[in-house]
Structures are given as structure tokens and as C-alpha cells.
């Protein structure tokens, strides 16, 4: 059963097309990720789903309620954490939570069970103004405020942007626990590694969906033989591999370079020989499976080629 249905949604701002004919179904109780960079259209899609913006074309429902006609009903069952910190900076941590519980006609106690795990981490600071919290704490408070009325669908717009890797991991741990409580979670992120933590994802770029599937099946779409290569001088390695005639694409990945080749026939040995002839030392070549980031870039390049 679908919790969110998006059918052929388009939205433009003047000449700028933010969303082009987007269709997505999010199943009940899944964590669905919208993976894309700033400006890909993720926030526009959220604004439409949380009934803050009207689409130009298309239709969307949340729990079978129409985002245009039934917007008042939708707002009651939806939890929304916008990309920009939107709590009251001069209210205390506790006052913010109390405020969000009361505008939905409830109390903190009613659904305390749902927020307990997260709330205990910020409780020591409950008298502090929300504006004075650190980034990680603000994020936890915003999540509590989005959850306090016990929504069935949770929309999180880039909750981990600008957050350090440790806090990001913790945040995903919290989401996994919410999933166990059968809340449907739609989350957007520019971090490709977070895609692997979702049940299914849509890769989105310039208002278009490049792929929708489980993270694993998306990476199977890569379709080229891929190597991970290491040598002493990364920058020179990258430059030399770009000149290699069998190169389809090559990108740095931390301490290694990922190289996709045109033909399946290219071997580790071929590469080692080529790099040796260019004077590289301590070269390590491995055959690897593509990850989400490899696939994202491959799909991006494909769509650029189609455009031009």
C-alpha cells in the first residue's frame, strides 16, 4: 500500500523549471530517500507534499488525501522538518516542544513514547533558548517537534546537511527506530552515502528523476566495468587516467580513483602497465562494484549527453 503517491507533478518558477513530470510512490512504513544536490528540486517537491505550494500540473496524495483539496486533513497527519531551522529561536527548548504539541491540540505526555529516545538527549538543555543550541541539538529538537503530534508520515528536508559525520550516523539510528513504529519517512539528502540507509531511493537532478529503486538495484544500473586504483600521487593519477584511451570516466574517491572503462576486456594488468609507463609507483588496482555515488555521476553524465 502506498502512503505517498506522486503522479506527473511539474512546477516552474518563472522560466526556471523546478520539477519536470515527477512520479513517485512511497510505500507505507518505508524510508524513502530523495538523493540530489541543492537545486535539484527536492525542497519544491516537499513544499508541494506538505501543502505549502501548489503544483502547476499533476496530482499527489498522502494517505489517499489530495494535497490540494484535503490540505487541512493532511496537515494533521504529517510531520515536517524543513531544510532551514524553523523553530522559535527565542523560545526555550521545552517551550518549542510544548507549542508544537498544543497547536495540534495535544500534549507532550500523550505521545511521549514516540519522542522519548531523542528527547532525553536534549532534556538537559530544556530551559535554553532554541537559537543557542549547537547544530546537532537543533536538529534533534526539530525532529521532536515534527513528531510530537504522532504523525503517520514524516517529511524531512535535508535534516543532515552541514551536520558532522558522527551526528549524521546517530540521526539515521533514530530514523531506523521510528521506522519500527510504522511511520513512513520521506527524507532528502545531498549525501550519497545516506542513500544506502534507505529502503528505496529516487536519484534526482535538475528537476528530473534519474532512477527509482532499492539502492542495490540502482547500483546494478551502472553497467560498466569499474576499477579502484591507488597510487602515491592522487592528482597526477587522475590526470594520467583521463588520458588513457580505454577510459570511460574517472573520479577521485577519497584516497583512490574509480575508473570505468569502455570495454570489459580491459584488465588489471593493462592498467598496471599503463600506469607503470607513466612513472607511477606502488600502484594498487582492484575490480569493484559501483556504489550509489558512481551510479549517480554516471546517470548525470548520461542525462547531460541527452540534453546536448
Amino acid at each position, binding site marked *: 500500500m502506498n502512503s505517498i503517491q506522486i503522479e506527473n507533478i511539474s512546477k516552474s518558477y518563472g522560466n*526556471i523549471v523546478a520539477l519536470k513530470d515527477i512520479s513517485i510512490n512511497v510505500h507505507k512504513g518505508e524510508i524513502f530517500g530523495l538523493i*540530489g*544536490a*541543492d*537545486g*535539484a528540486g527536492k525542497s519544491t517537491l516537499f513544499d508541494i507534499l506538505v501543502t505549502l505550494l501548489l503544483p502547476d500540473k499533476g496530482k499527489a496524495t498522502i494517505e489517499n488525501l489530495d494535497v490540494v483539496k484535503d490540505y487541512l486533513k493532511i496537515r494533521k497527519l504529517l510531520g515536517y522538518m524543513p531544510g532551514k531551522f524553523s523553530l522559535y529561536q527565542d523560545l526555550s527548548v521545552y517551550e518549542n516542544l510544548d507549542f508544537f504539541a498544543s497547536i495540534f491540540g495535544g500534549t507532550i505526555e500523550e505521545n511521549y513514547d514516540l519522542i522519548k529516545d531523542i528527547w532525553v538527549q536534549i532534556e538537559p538543555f530544556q530551559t535554553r533558548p532554541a537559537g543557542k543550541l*549547537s*547544530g*546537532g541539538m537543533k536538529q534533534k529538537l526539530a525532529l521532536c517537534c515534527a513528531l510530537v503530534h504522532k504523525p503517520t508520515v514524516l517529511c524531512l528536508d*535535508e535534516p543532515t*546537511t*552541514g*551536520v*558532522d*559525520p*558522527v*551526528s*549524521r*550516523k*546517530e540521526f539515521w539510528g533514530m530514523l531506523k527506530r521510528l521506522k519500527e513504529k510504522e511511520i513512513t519517512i520521506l527524507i532528502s539528502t*545531498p*549525501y*550519497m552515502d545516506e542513500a544506502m540507509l534507505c529502503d528505496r531511493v529516487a536519484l534526482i*537532478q535538475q528537476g528530473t528523476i534519474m532512477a527509482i529503486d532499492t539502492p542495490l538495484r540502482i547500483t546494478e544500473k551502472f553497467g560498466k566495468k569499474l576499477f579502484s586504483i591507488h597510487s602515491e600521487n*592522487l*592528482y597526477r593519477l587522475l590526470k594520467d587516467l583521463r588520458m588513457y584511451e580505454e577510459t570511460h570516466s574517472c*573520479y*577521485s*574517491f*577519497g*584516497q583512490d580513483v574509480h575508473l570505468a572503462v569502455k570495454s570489459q576486456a580491459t584488465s588489471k594488468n593493462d592498467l598496471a602497465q599503463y600506469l607503470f609507463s607513466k612513472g607511477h609507483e606502488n600502484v594498487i588496482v582492484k575490480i569493484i562494484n559501483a556504489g550509489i*555515488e558512481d551510479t*549517480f*555521476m554516471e546517470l*548525470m*553524465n548520461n542525462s547531460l549527453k541527452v540534453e546536448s
Partner: protein
Amino acid sequence: MNTIIADKLTKRFGDFTAVDNITFEVGKGEIFGFLGANGAGKTTAMRMLCGLLGPTSGKATVAGFDVYKQSEKIKRNIGYMSQKFSLYNDLTVKENIEFYGTVYGLTRLQIKEKTTKLLERLQMISEKNKFVKDLPLGWKQKISFSVAILHEPKIVFLDEPTGGVDPITRRQFWELIYETADEGTTVFVTTHYMDEAEYCNRVSIMVDGRIDALGSPQYLKQKYNATSMDEVFYMLARETATK
């Protein structure tokens, strides 16, 4: 020659120690990654090094100038770019470049030459009369960076320069960083992408205001018996992030 020397640099706000006795040096043309969890003290340390905030104690020189007495000279000799403060949206690309050129005291002729060079390097000549607000984020970041080094500073400070950009643009951005460092400019960069930490010559990791680890990515991975910088970071920064 070192372009940044910090010796027991400390900043306290009331009874809270934001930066606690940090000591490090950054060499000319080095790419230095300045890592730490949110709230570890990176921004405060960076503001002191940029001459924007006076330290409580300790010493530091940046581009050869003292952070206590010569902060104005520091500002002239550094470039700074952050994700938040970048360009004027209501000015065109060309106007933004001219504006920054003027602020940094370049002559009209210098500005003209630099503008052409910069637009060629970024392959953006045909976009020069476009308003910055109409450009994709990735382009804005590249222009911001180029503008930050327009006056050929000895050091450029980059505060999370690649946040939110797509993976291809992120990598193109790092190539700009490599080129700049190759030309002898010191690059001091903060990031939350741990793959980018691997691109730095050396990195430091701040925990609770202290520098708890410092060295090349290779060295740190060996020292902490980790396979990636992500693991190293996780081991060190976990403590602060959970507070």
C-alpha cells in the same frame, strides 16, 4: 616557510573554553584540512586566524602577521569563502568580480585582466553578464572561490565550500583547490565530507576545542588502525557529538 603558525592559541567565552591551547603550523602551498564535529571549536579558531576575533591567550601569525596587532594586514593577505556568504545575487558575474577586485584594492587594469583570466579558467565567458542568482549552485561556488583568491592571497580559508553540491561539481571544485595549491597558495579547508579529508596533505581533528589528532591522512589511518578517514573521525569525534 610556514604561512600559519598557532602556538597555544586559546579562546574563552566566560567560563566556556571554545578553543583550548591549539598548536599547529601550516606550510606554504599546503592543503590543510581542519576537521571536527559541530561545536568542536572550528569556526572560533578560524575566526581568530582570519583576524576577526581576538584570542584570549596564546600566539598566532598568519601570512607573517600577528593576530593581535596586525589583524587588518591579515585580512588583506588572506582569501575567505564560506557556503553562506558568497556572492551578490543581484549583481552579474562580471560585476561581482569587479566589486571584489575593488574591495581588495586592485587597479582597474588588474581587475580587467583578472576578470578575463578567471572567466576563461572557469569556461564562463558567455555567462559573464548573467545575474548570479540565475546560476546553478555549483557555478556559484566556483566563482566564489575564484573571487576569494582574486587578489592572490598567501592563504585561502574555505569553510565547508562543497556543502550541498552534486558529486561531479564537488570533484571539479577540488581540482580548483589542487591547482591553487600547486601555484603556492596555502589552502585551509573545513569539510564534513570525509572523502575530501583524504585529499588534504594534512588534517587536524578538533575535539572539545583541542586538536586531538594531526598529520597526513595516511599517518592518521595507520596510527588509529583505520581503513578510512571516516573511521578515524568517528573514533575521535564521537565524544563531543554525543554531548
